[in-house]
């Protein structure tokens, strides 16, 4: 940009006055003067606002800055956050009860924001890329449908899409009792949300992960060695396939080794129960139900099943539960789970006779057994484990338990954000791919590069340079729009802060915290964007 100043006209006389005047009327000098005046106005304005606030805070919300001892001080602005929250969060990611503090409630909300936001970011990237590619499909129908999707999504407000998805689609799904199970898989889709099978890591998983790392190293070594041989001999050696096979072999060896060596899981049973190893359970249950074969358990009536069911205590959200119950289900033994919040609670249940066995890691059980009145009357039965165990959702009464469960609200917000932002992303992806000129593709073919090489070496590096900056702003907008969880009652940060505000009446304090969180999210994304832009400097043609 050109300079704004007009250089002062040459002084006609050399008198001091005209010299001074020529300096004073210099635009640069006036500009600086104006900015100083502006700073003073800003500071004065801030002072006025602050004094207004101080006056009004006393008038409008007397308790805004009350300390616990009843005195009034600005330093006590955030004291109320230690108070008991007193409200429930329907979908708290961490252990939360309404007796926890406001801070804890807010923290749960922040985690929820990130949970739904980051998951939606991943899903948006996938769906947006697919839709962007579909826009350029050679199949007319696919291209037109992708176009219709993009146009419809981009021309309607996210809020209304969310409301439609939540109220007209999710809440219109069948009741949990008749949950949809697509293709008969253990996936339960109902108006309460979605339950998915979810892998849980057992304690032996660390050993398995070591094997996986070993496999990865093997892959890398093989890749380099065979690559060198390829260079020397000129023969193709299928190094990808050999590497993958080697990896699978090592991973499965690791699986068997770590599951046979592992001895971490156990069952706490009474000595009188005659359970000495896990197979004994089957015999005991057979005799209790009065049947001859495990298959006959299925023929029992519901009441009978309930009556004979094996009563199990477990810790809530522990991996020991699926590890044990999966085995029971494999033997088709009916069982009844009692989930306790803490080991002591579970042990108490066990002592009271609410359950016959208590499944947990051996270390926990050993510690608990020591607290019992007569440790000698109890023993720990080992259970086999695998490094990873699938927690499979299933019916328990009228509820689906287990696996990874998304509430309907979470699901609606997740789907809504994903569908909305993927529509925008599709256009960005398309623009990125179109920005790579056709000559580049032709040149790559002329050089004899394979299709994969062409994509990897020629098209993607150039397309990504165009796609990634808008992609990052899309992510940022998505993170900010998680605040629309308010519309579908998903307890993310904004909704929780609203509840906090209604309960405590501290508007300013809460607004400041949520602004800070959102600003730090956007700052992170800006830093990311700047870092990427500085790395991939656009070369002007």
């Amino acid at each position, binding site marked *: 940009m050109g300079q704004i100043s007009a250089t002062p006209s040459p002084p006609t006389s050399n008198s001091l006055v005209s010299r001074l005047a020529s300096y004073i009327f210099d635009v640069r000098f006036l500009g600086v003067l104006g900015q100083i005046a502006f700073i003073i106005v800003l500071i004065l304005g801030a002072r006025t606002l602050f004094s207004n606030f101080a006056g009004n805070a006393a008038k409008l919300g007397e308790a805004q800055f009350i300390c616990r001892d009843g005195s009034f001080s600005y330093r006590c602005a955030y004291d109320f956050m230690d108070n008991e929250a007193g409200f429930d969060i329907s979908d708290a990611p961490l252990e939360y009860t309404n007796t926890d503090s406001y801070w804890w409630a807010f923290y749960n909300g922040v985690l929820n924001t990130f949970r739904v936001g980051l998951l939606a970011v991943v899903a948006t990237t996938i769906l947006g890329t697919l839709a962007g590619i579909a826009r350029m499909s050679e199949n007319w129908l696919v291209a037109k449908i992708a176009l219709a999707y993009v146009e419809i999504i981009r021309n309607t407000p996210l809020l209304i899409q969310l409301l439609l998805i939540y109220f007209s689609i999710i809440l219109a799904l069948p009741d949990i009792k008749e949950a949809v199970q697509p293709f008969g898989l253990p996936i339960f889709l109902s108006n309460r949300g979605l339950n998915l099978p979810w892998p849980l890591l057992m304690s032996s998983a660390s050993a398995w992960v070591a094997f996986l790392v070993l496999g990865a190293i093997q892959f890398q070594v093989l890749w380099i060695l065979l690559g060198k041989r390829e260079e020397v001999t000129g023969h193709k050696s299928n190094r990808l396939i050999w590497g993958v096979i080697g990896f699978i072999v090592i991973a499965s060896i690791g699986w068997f080794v770590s599951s046979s060596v592992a001895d971490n899981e156990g069952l706490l049973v009474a000595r009188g129960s005659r359970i000495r190893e896990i197979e004994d359970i089957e015999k005991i249950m057979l005799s209790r139900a009065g049947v001859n074969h495990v298959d006959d358990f299925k023929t029992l009536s519901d009441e009978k099943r309930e009556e004979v069911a094996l009563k199990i205590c477990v810790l809530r959200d522990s991996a020991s539960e699926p590890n044990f119950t999966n085995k029971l289900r494999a033997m088709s033994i009916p069982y009844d789970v009692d989930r306790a919040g803490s080991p002591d609670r579970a042990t108490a249940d066990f002592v009271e006779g609410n359950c016959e066995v208590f499944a947990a890691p051996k270390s926990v059980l050993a510690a608990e057994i020591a607290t019992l009145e007569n440790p000698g009357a109890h023993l720990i039965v080992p259970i086999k484990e695998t490094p990873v165990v699938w927690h499979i959702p299933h019916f328990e009464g009228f509820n689906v338990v287990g696996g990874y469960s998304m509430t309907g609200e979470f699901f609606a917000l997740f789907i809504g954000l994903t569908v909305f932002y993927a529509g925008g992303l599709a256009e960005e992806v398309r623009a990125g791919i179109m920005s790579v000129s056709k000559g580049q593709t032709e040149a790559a073919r002329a050089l004899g590069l394979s299709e994969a090489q062409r994509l990897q070496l020629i098209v993607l590096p150039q397309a990504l340079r165009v796609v990634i900056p808008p992609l990052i702003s899309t992510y940022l907008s998505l993170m900010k729009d998680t605040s629309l969880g*308010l519309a579908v009652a998903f307890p993310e940060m904004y909704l929780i802060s609203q509840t906090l505000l209604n309960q405590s009446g501290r508007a300013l304090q809460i607004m400041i915290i949520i602004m800070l969180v*959102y600003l730090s999210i956007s700052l992170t994304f800006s830093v990311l964007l700047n870092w990427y832009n500085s790395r991939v400097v656009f070369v002007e043609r």
Partner: protein
Amino acid sequence: MTTLTKAFEERRKTFAKRFNWEYFLLDNLTGSRALTIWVTVLFLVTLGTFIVQLGVAPGRTLILTLIWAAGIAMVVAGELFGLHTPISRWLKDNLLSSVSNTLVTLLILLLVAQVSSGIWHWGYTTATFDSTRTAPDVRSEGATWGVLWGARKLILTGTLSPEHTWRVVLAGVMVIVLWLLSFIATRPSIKASMGYLQRISIILWLMAPIAAYILLAGIAPSEQLISISTLLTGLVIVLALMGLLWFFKVITLDPVSIAVWVLAWPVGYLIWQLIGRTGLFPPINVDEWGGLLLTIIFAIAVNLLSFPLGILLALGRRADVQGIPGWLVWPVAIMATVYFLATNTPELWTTSRNNIERLLALWPLLILIVAYFYMRAFHGNLVQAFSVVFIELIRGVPLITLLFMAIVMAPFFSATGEAIKNFWAVIVGYTIFSAAYMAELVRGGLQAIPKGQYEAADSLGFNVLQKYRFIILPQALRILIPPLAGSVIGTFKSSSLVALVGMFDLVGIVRGIIGNGQWLGLRSELYAFMFVLYFVVSSGVSWYSRRLEERTGLGVR
């Protein structure tokens, strides 16, 4: 007979020439492992869908499949026996070019048919359209569209009392008439014969916001007809503005324009007061506005207000004024830091209760940090610093936070401690938000103008105002038409968010309608209606902007 065999033989030969199983399989199935897997999976999915659909709706599925098969037959006939028609050629190019494409076509046909028949079934076949049959106990299983007619008053104007409806209608008629006028005025034949018509329509458009305000918000009748002090203050402000613009050579003065400028304020003021006196348009509480009316008001007002503010912010962000020099900033900052460290920190430090408060007691050091970043990033350029910080802060937080802040925080910061009307609070918050985004758009447009244009304006001796008024902005705004249209649509769409802070715009009033006993639970109908409404308006605006772009010749380079 022989001719027939001969003809057949010929066809067979061409067939053999045109078709080779090996190549066909290689191209469509066995070319690579990935292709084989993809086609197999696709085949299985399509087959599964077909079987499921056959169970759900046999007739529809069979007809679609037959059409699809007929299409394949046409393409095969065309390809192998040279019997192409335009249709079969199109089908071959676009829908049935390979085995995988053919399968995808059938799959999508079946899925689209299922979805659209589901919507049709709900929205038309089993729906009722009678506005008297909307109560929960007499509804059919499909949509109950009667609610749209039954609740039309609420949907259109919300809680506005019915006695004012004629004013809303009048405002709507005014806009339509004006639009027609400018439409007629821009026709080439009319433009040639009656050029003044366009001038008139522009002037009327400029007056329209005031007229709309009088119609929709009304004027409170004042005690005295003319307050001399208001009249004179206004006049002085107008004349000062005129003088400033004249000084910077943005406007030129001739007797007519001087007369217009001088008379504009007194005449306008007088007319305003007179209309107030007549009591024709008694004031309406702005928080009574609702429904579509409020949505439209938000969309238009926020767009109009944020546009100039956005341009200002963008210009501020690019302003290249001489910054406050370091020799001035640093001493002041250091003195302020030392002063507060000496006076404020000890007191805070001694009374602090934990480490965080001890850290906060050192807040004067923040002055130094701010000064450092101010000098480093902006070289003392306050205009730029202010614009950048403002824009980035606003863009960093979600819109509803800002709206909520505007509503909740306004009474805390006002001098009297009284709440301002929610409507005005939301307008302010929303305009600020929209302006920050607009500023980034305009900045993009300004950056797209070649540097030579700026330099040319400088070398011609234009001052800043002239440079932007005559050289830069006309070009930048033309480039900006598509993104501005996008932003206008965005503002219109996002205006639905005001419902979340308790305003009764379209979405807000619809939530009220759903809760009303007569229409209890008729969500999907109303949401679908809003969905379509927003879609139509947004697509309309983007279509219009594309047309505008074509007309200004920007598309042609």
